[in-house]
């Protein structure tokens, strides 16, 4: 270790720990996030977890869960938030940018090429039919995620949670109210009922 390096935030390497926390460099961050992003069809989270926790051991499973929970409760694309928070934890703003560029850059090039192909050939009947088939399956996958996420609420018989879920579904999906207006009502309401429910459990 060079003498001027600051003391590590994690506990000093210790015989019982198999490998000390590693400090990725900027290029390493970029490449790692590019790899997990390009591997991630239909979602990058699984690959991010595998890469960060299991392969590189940049974080423990608990640290990863905590970081992801934070990125999930903030708005926006979760995995994008995760890349920025993760990268900046190691290398400051430059690290956040490197991880972000790796995650979004290469797939964005691919998506742009696909969009250009679609703009050029999208009217061809056989391509339209193929994409229609993909869309049907993709919607099914989306519903499966919804069901999986609903299971804990159903098991807990979380009536208020399910009521809020249904209300949001009706307001956005059926009535098509604008997202901002619905959320400005639903978020405070949901926070209030959550706080109340927790107080009642404690009492």
């Amino acid at each position, binding site marked *: 270790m060079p003498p001027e390096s600051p003391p590590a935030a994690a506990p000093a390497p210790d015989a019982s720990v198999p490998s000390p926390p590693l400090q990725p460099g900027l290029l390493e961050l970029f490449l790692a996030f590019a790899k997990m*992003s390009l591997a*991630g*069809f239909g*979602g990058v989270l699984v690959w991010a977890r595998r890469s960060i926790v299991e392969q590189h051991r940049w974080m423990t499973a608990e640290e990863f869960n905590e970081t992801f*929970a*934070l990125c*999930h*409760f*903030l*708005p*926006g*694309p*979760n995995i*994008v*938030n995760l890349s*920025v*928070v993760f990268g*900046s*934890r190691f290398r400051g703003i430059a690290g956040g940018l490197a991880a*972000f560029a790796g995650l*979004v850059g*290469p*797939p*964005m090039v691919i*998506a*742009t090429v696909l*969009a250009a192909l*679609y*703009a050029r050939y999208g009217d061809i009947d056989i391509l339209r*039919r193929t*994409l*229609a*088939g*993909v*869309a*049907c399956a*993709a*919607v*099914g*996958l989306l*519903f*499966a*995620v919804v069901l999986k996420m609903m299971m804990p*609420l159903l098991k807990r018989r979380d009536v208020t949670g399910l009521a*809020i*879920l*249904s*209300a*949001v*579904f009706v307001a*956005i*999906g059926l009535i098509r109210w*604008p*997202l*901002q207006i619905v*959320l400005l009502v639903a*978020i405070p309401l*949901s*926070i209030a009922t959550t*706080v109340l429910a927790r107080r009642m459990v404690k009492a």
Partner: protein
Amino acid sequence: MNSESSPIAALVWTFGLMSLFAVGGANSAIPEMHRAAVDVHHWLTDKQFADVFAISQLSPGPNVLIVTLIGYSVAGVGGALAATLAMCGPTALLAYYVSRFLDRSRDARWPAIIQAALVPLSIGLMAASGLIVAQTSDQSWIAVLITIVAAALAFATRTNPLWMLLAGALLGFAGVV
């Protein structure tokens, strides 16, 4: 150029604002994307929106890349770049500052409460996303059946989702849908 700066400005404004309201990730924001792109700005038709959703699910990378595709169809490569950065930038900045703030106050209890409160909201939003894309893509009873089978398989088994997308592509190619 003036004729190009205006659609790009509309993209940046639309997705920049949407990014801050996309509770639960990009798939939760699909109803709002559909409203903005199809109903408000008339950038895409219903059919094109379903196609763009399909392409975004077929390509690697985060789901948020659906905005790249919408941006491209509005204003080419510049539009793709502008829409993507607008959708990712504001919330990434917010995540950066919030994570730094939380690192200093580690045992704050409110993040857990807010998170628990947001879970039902984001599930409701994703269910609405499913409904809206289903309405634009499931035009026949076979299409509905494919959606149901894919949902059941993905819910009950650990099959790689890519196989179901490919199966959907083959059925569509064969003219079944």
